[in-house]
């Protein structure tokens, strides 16, 4: 009798403790898993994740660093006993290597057009793979409610366009387009993107600094960190920059992963609204 009881207990225990061991090299997949309450057993380039993505935080005790994203350390992976890899097209070249350890599922967070639908779709896919579909539904619903709330809080003049940029150096920058999560967030917050067309596959276009003159004079410039250390100094000496009215109230946002999924989109939205309401950093 006792033996049967023990066996049933063990079987039940097995069912409950069968959490999938998921690993990924892609930061977008990692952040989505973390937002859904799953701790991946391994993530690529954790050092840089902590600098560029920042949240959701990776728990170093539960998640191993897999090394370079394009060449994850296979010996570390071998020791991790992974059940499933979730990979993205950007790192498709390593799929054959990963397949030797566990099945690989591909999820895509980029799109030429409707990026928001793509992000939500992929979030659902990941949730399905991790067997946490309910959490996903809740998370998405909460996020959308939060976006609606943030939209109310914005104090920006109607008709003002927004330009979200990242400086590569003092003469070249990226402008985020309609098909990036930046563009999608601007859409949801009822803000108008100065470049309301799709950019390249990753959602941006490269511009040189003189193209800033083509923006409408009252454009709100939003600069996302990081930028090279000498950019503020060089810009201060730049005659075009000093001439542009839009340089007067530039908003600087902390590092945000502009190629991410829902968590990064929400982080960007929160930081943007904070910035628009006056709480922005300085150069």
């Amino acid at each position, binding site marked *: 009798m006792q033996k049967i009881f023990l066996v049933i207990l063990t079987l039940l225990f097995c069912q409950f403790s069968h959490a999938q061991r998921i690993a990924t090299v892609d930061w977008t997949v990692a952040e989505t898993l973390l937002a859904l309450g799953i701790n991946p057993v391994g993530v690529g380039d954790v050092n840089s994740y902590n600098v560029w993505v920042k949240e959701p935080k990776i728990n170093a005790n539960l998640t191993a660093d897999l090394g370079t994203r394009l060449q994850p350390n296979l010996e570390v992976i*071998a020791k991790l006993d992974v059940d499933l890899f979730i990979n993205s*097209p950007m790192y498709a070249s390593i799929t054959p*290597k990963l397949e030797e350890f566990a099945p690989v599922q591909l999820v895509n967070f980029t799109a030429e057009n409707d990026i928001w639908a793509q992000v939500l779709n992929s979030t659902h896919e990941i949730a399905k793979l991790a067997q946490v579909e309910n959490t996903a539904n809740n998370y998405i619903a909460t996020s959308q409610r939060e976006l609606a709330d943030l939209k109310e809080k914005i104090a920006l003049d109607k008709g003002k366009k927004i330009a979200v940029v990242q400086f590569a150096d003092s003469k070249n920058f990226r402008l985020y387009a309609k098909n990036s999560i930046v563009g999608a967030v601007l859409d949801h917050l009822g803000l108008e993107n100065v470049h309301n067309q799709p950019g390249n596959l990753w959602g941006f276009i*490269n511009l040189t600094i003189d193209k800033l*003159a083509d923006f409408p004079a009252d454009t709100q410039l939003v600069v996302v960190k990081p930028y090279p250390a000498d950019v503020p100094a060089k810009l201060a000496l730049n005659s075009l920059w000093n001439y542009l009215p839009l340089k007067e109230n530039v908003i600087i946002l902390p590092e945000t992963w502009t190629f991410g999924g829902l968590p990064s989109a929400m982080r960007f939205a929160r930081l943007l609204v904070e910035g628009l309401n006056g709480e922005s950093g300085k150069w």
Partner: protein
Amino acid sequence: MVRKLNLLIFILLGASIALASILTLKQLPQVGLTELLNSQTNNVKILLWQNYTLPRIVMAILAGLGLAVATVILQQLTKNNLASDSTLAVSSGAQLAIVIATVFFPSFLIFGVSFIAFAGALAALMLVLVLSMRKNTNHIIVILSGMVVSLYLGALSAVFILIFPEETRSVVIWAAGSLIQDSWLDSRNLLLGLTVLLALVLLFAKSFNMLSLDDASAKRLGVPVLRIRIIGLIIAAFIVGLIVARVGMLGFIGLISTAIVRNLGARTFKQVLFYAAVVSALLLLVTDLLLQLVDFYYQMQIPTGAVTSIIGTPVLLYIMFTDKARTTKVSQESKGYRKEGGIKTYITLISLCLIALLLNLSFRNDFSYTIFELRIPRILLEIGAAIILAISGLVLQRISNNPLASPELLGITSGVNLGLMATLLLFSGASLTALWLGGTLGAFFVLAIVMLLSVKSGLQPEKVLMVGISITALYDAAQRIFIATNDFRAYTLLSLTSGTTYNASLDSALILLIVAIVAFIVIYLLNKIFILISLHTPMATELGLNIFKTRLFFILLVAIILTCVTLNIGSIMFVGLIAPHAAKFLGFYKPRPQLVVSILIAILLMLVADLLAKNIIYPYEIPVGLVATILGGIYFAYLVRKI
């Protein structure tokens, strides 16, 4: 004769004025001349023209001028018409210094970019000159040293870019050579710097002129030869540093202008200096204006520096082929006799290899089957590659009688890389097989070009190497443009070509190992031919050696085995270069012993490199080829002083 030059300058001047006017008209339709020069203007477009277009024009003129002057000085000091800021690694040195500063000391950049660049430029120049200035040298050897150092510094830059992609994002754009300006600041500072330096040049012009004589005569005429040389080098390095710090590497423009100017009749130092400076300034200006117009009409931003590199490569080739000065052949065994290497050395080497092998297999190993399964293919691949590289280096050095002949200068590696780049560009999600095919096609394409261009001279190895160097330079420029577009695929290309055994599979490793062993057996059996080929050509022919067929056979053999290595691992530099030298250094002169010992040394080097590459920044890996290159480079610098 000088009339042709004046005509050229007239034409270039006309072209620049025409292009500048077209550009201005396109940028500022319907603007009067007085409005144009109004410094208090409120018109954005005029402001842009005053602060972007004009400074860019001035910068092009100054950069072209400066680089030409530096090149002419270098050519005068080394008495070598092939010397320039690009071929003596001066620009690469400046760039590496800036890359290192950007990653580790970013705050320095705000204040002292020029000094950092100057330090890098001077260091690189010194390195090249120390390596190549020996008693029996010829022009090609100096350039070979310069290109080898340039490649080495480029490899070091690549390591930093690979490991710190975000920090170096700004560097890669500038590294392709961009003249874009956003204010008068840079051009003003450059003008000040150049004025001072040019004044110095004119001051010392007479002394530089005297260096055309041989050292003894010059000394007799009262010229402090060594001091003048040093001053000249410092001035040249400073000019290059100033320019590279502001606009990145504008490859070969100095070389192109001096070549044109000499071809059109300039003879004396002062003539060459003046005309090269003017031609260079105008040529760079015309190129940049054309690219600006391309940007205006087609919205394509092509970095100027990379364009000059691509144009410069055929020019480099042309000069090398027509270079009239031919000094004596480098004698091989002239630096005294070392004791013949014996059994003890063999045993030491083999033991060291075994120790390295054991370390590689057991370090950080919990001795599970999987770990071995992962490590063994990679180790086998490295051993196979080491064998092939050692063989290639030895064969090339022996058939060309040139101690600086190395597999990477043959151009095959660059051919494979060009094929890979083309495949990545054409097929976004290229599979490994597609990449292999592309790489092989690239290798054959380059081999065909090499053959075509040198078949007339009977496949003279020097010519073969010259073509190889040019193709390597061409690939370097193309890669730089690719990386500057910030396309993710560029980083894929970097990681594919940087010498990694990551994609090793047991099958490919065994195949490579078999190829290596077969090559070894072939070369081992061809002992007699090697002994013959180190004799002078007429004697060898009389002894029954068909020089052309022999060279053809060896070059083809080396090309095939190198393609196999590059496809599997990517480029590994210096291993093929130093292994044969190290073997000789240890006392093994005869072909067969040298072969065996070179192979052992190469294997040892690769295994040690692998140990470091996998564990220094665990769990992140550095490509083993890069580590081998760096280790090899250090050993190279040490070895060359003993040759």
